[in-house]
């Protein structure tokens, strides 16, 4: 049997047998459709693309990859922003777009069983007639898939109160990197493999069926838009709200440059003259929300808000969110090119880190627009530059990288929701020691000893599993003899 890169032609023939011509893409032009995900400056044309329709087909494809030593990468809608679904030219790209059935909407058990290619929003839409929804709501929820959400442990604006994908997934059927179909269930005693799998960016296998928890629609949702003269006073308001013991569903902030971009793009009609706007959304029992809302309004006013708007119906709420939700795309209106950064800092460090970003911006002559999840310290600085200007792209890269250094210096993280992917693997050694990265490799090696599942992502220098570090004296004799099964 041929293995390694030379195996691809033979493997493709086998894939055609498994999936038929309609399920395999080999045409070079069509392959290029899949050469990148949402992070477009990393590109690679996949060796071959497959479009399986069932878990059994995914397992057959993965088994064929395993037998031939061929790397494989899973991809949903390709909305990822860290190059997590970047294909391999010497490998197979497994696209889940044909696996998009909602298999079961189980209201009495408050859960839905879906295939990985189902979009995030489709689950909530299916559940809404019954008064339920699926809580994690990444900004790309109209198009991103649940399989991708699982890979990235996606959050969204409302994860401050409601949590991330990992808090709402009850079970996952996955195809292991060796081609076995295994179910990880939150009810299983023992290691929380479900929790470890979610957010592993496709390096531990491919989810083929996801059981998610459905949440009851809250009795009341109230949204406040508050305009502040500057980011500092908005930050004071955020601290005051959290300090008062209020846990909003979301607290989002945009600075002047981000507001300018949003206005240019979608005319969101935010209060003129605002140096920062804060969106605070509260949800829950009406009696609680009414009380907390009065508190939030008072605290915003005391912190310097000069205009406030309130929405408690869907249309007016959408109007408030319009500017925030369009912010990323909108900066295209005020800058020829930009980088989206994704760093996290402890909430109390926000003022210092924002000042640090301003300083970086001034030092390198690069504008930075700030849009962020203020409640949980997740920053999304948009680093703007003119790609026609010589050296500007490089300076923007430097600023973007130094923002992450700043986050780490204040005890934060290099990614809050976009993932490490290929884009940030080089920053992992800044956040973790070699021993810590080696320890994470132990997990990888347990699931994927051959290192074929989305290789090159997350870890800068993956080790061979046979070379795992530490004291090793071989298998325990009792285990080797089959007398004991110790763990």
């Amino acid at each position, binding site marked *: 049997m041929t293995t390694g890169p030379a195996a691809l032609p033979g493997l493709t023939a086998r894939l055609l047998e498994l999936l038929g011509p309609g399920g395999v893409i080999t045409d070079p032009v069509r392959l290029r459709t899949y050469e990148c995900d949402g992070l477009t400056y990393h590109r690679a044309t996949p060796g071959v693309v497959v479009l399986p329709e069932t878990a059994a087909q995914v397992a057959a494809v993965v088994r064929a990859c395993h037998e031939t030593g061929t790397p494989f990468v899973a991809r949903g809608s390709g909305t990822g922003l860290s190059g997590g679904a970047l294909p391999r030219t010497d490998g197979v790209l497994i696209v889940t777009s044909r696996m998009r059935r909602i298999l079961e909407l189980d209201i009495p058990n408050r859960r839905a069983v879906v295939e990985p290619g189902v979009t995030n929003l489709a689950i909530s839409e299916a559940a809404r007639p019954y008064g339920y929804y699926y809580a994690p709501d990444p900004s790309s929820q109209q198009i991103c898939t649940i399989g991708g959400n699982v890979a990235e442990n996606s959050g969204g604006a409302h994860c401050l109160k409601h*949590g991330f994908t990992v808090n709402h997934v009850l079970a996952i059927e996955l195809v*292991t990197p060796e081609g076995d179909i295994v179910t990880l269930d939150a009810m*299983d005693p023992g290691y*929380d493999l479900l929790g470890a799998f979610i957010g592993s960016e496709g390096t531990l296998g491919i989810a083929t069926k996801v059981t998610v928890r459905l949440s009851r629609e809250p009795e009341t949702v109230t949204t406040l838009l508050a305009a502040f003269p500057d980011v500092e006073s908005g930050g004071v308001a955020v601290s005051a709200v959290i300090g008062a013991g209020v846990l909003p569903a979301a607290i989002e902030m945009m600075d002047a440059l981000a507001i300018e971009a949003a206005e240019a793009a979608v005319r969101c009609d935010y209060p003129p003259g605002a140096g920062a706007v804060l969106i605070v959304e509260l949800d829950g029992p009406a009696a609680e929300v009414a009380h907390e809302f009065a508190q939030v309004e008072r605290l915003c006013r005391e912190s310097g808000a000069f205009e406030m708007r309130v929405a408690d119906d869907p249309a007016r709420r959408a109007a408030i969110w319009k500017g925030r939700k369009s912010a990323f795309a909108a900066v295209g209106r005020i800058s020829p090119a930009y980088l989206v950064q994704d760093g996290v800092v402890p909430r109390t460090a926000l003022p210092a880190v924002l000042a640090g970003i301003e300083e970086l911006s001034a030092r390198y002559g690069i504008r930075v627009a700030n849009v962020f999840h203020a409640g949980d310290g997740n920053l999304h600085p948009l680093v703007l530059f003119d790609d026609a200007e010589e050296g500007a792209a490089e300076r923007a890269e430097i600023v973007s990288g130094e923002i992450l250094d700043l986050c780490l210096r204040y005890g934060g*993280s290099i990614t809050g929701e976009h993932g490490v992917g290929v884009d940030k693997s080089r920053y992992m050694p800044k956040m973790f020691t070699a021993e810590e990265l080696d*320890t994470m490799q132990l997990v990888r090696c*347990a699931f994927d000893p051959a290192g074929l599942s989305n290789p090159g992502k997350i870890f800068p220098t993956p080790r061979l599993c046979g070379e795992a570090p530490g004291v090793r004296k071989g298998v325990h004799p009792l285990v080797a003899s089959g007398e004991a099964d*110790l763990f």
Partner: protein
Amino acid sequence: MTPGESLVTTGVAVRPAEPGDEVAGVAPRWVATPETTGEAALVMRAAADHGLAVTPVGGGTKLSWGHPPARCDLVLDTRRLARVLEHEAGDLVARVQAGITADALAAALGAAGQRLALDFTTGGSTVGGALATAAAGPGRLRHGTARDLLIGVTVVLADGTVARAGGKVVKNVAGYDLGKLFTGSLGTLGLITEATFRLHPLPTARAWITATSPGPGVVAAVARLATSPLEPSAIELDSPGVRAPVTVAALVEGVAAGERAEDAARLLGDTARISADPPAWWGRLPGQAAPGAGPAGYLLELRVPPAAAVTAPAAAGRAAGAAGLDAHIRGSAATCVLYAALPPDTPPGAAEIFVTSLRTELSAAGGRLVVWTAPPEAARIDRFGPVGSAALMRRVKERFDPEGRMSPGRLTGGAARAGA
């Protein structure tokens, strides 16, 4: 150098084991009490040099959980790892050493008007023990379990490697979440020395709504309450015996707790009463002689999907009746994690019949049954039942602890051995 000499030369407090240091009946040779992660790593390295089997021990309240260790040379007692390392109230985050007890942590955080929204089901429990056993109480409905509140962890592996994962920010997706992996690991992957949690503000007001009924009526009301927009923080159930009345108690928290409690009371029916304090049994495992004492008999955990929660207590009652037993059932009715206690003098054969038949019935509804504790004479009982991902778990264990020295055999394996 002998193993004992090696342990002493680490400079960490190590003493010979005494009566009372047994782990589920297995006597160790030494007990080490490190005060820092670094000290723990020194001890673990010395243990690795001599192939010693190590069992981490916290407050000791759940030492009887899981199988007795197959080997135990060294107990790693975490109770001197008891400090709050960082608590930034504005960030609602605290980093603590694993040996801190629930009470000490609550006192430290309470001073700032905050709490770790995790119920410790036995008094004297430590944070590390709560993580290792994945135990949780009533608050799991609103705030999830330990895995949902843990945002960072520091562990020492069998070979002395110190590894940290996660961090001290709530939103973080950098690298694998080792904290989740270690949650529920019963000390078989390594030693947890530090944990970072997201915190919650202490609620302004609380109210409990309690209703008791002889039949399943009040249990049926659980679903109405759980799916109401009242957002209760907990819904618990207590059924002291197969033929005893069932009590359901719910907790609402927040400024408007009083008002919401009245709405909740209407949903729970005519017998509902509102009080400012929880029922005496709230947040405690059934079958405990006293708070802090481990269960003396059999403690079973029943996990079922919500729709089966209404029928699970009755199913347990039927299975107990068929085996000629009585069972005390208590637990989280809405999140569908219930505990069943059988008295210590239950004949092992009858217990096995009960476990097997109830497990079969719960499995058909997509549920699980785990036997956390059982007397030594019940060693034949399959404690964990079938687990779909057991093979993957075994591979994880082999990578983290290839020599099989960390609490060997606690998590599973007894059934395999007994069947061989």
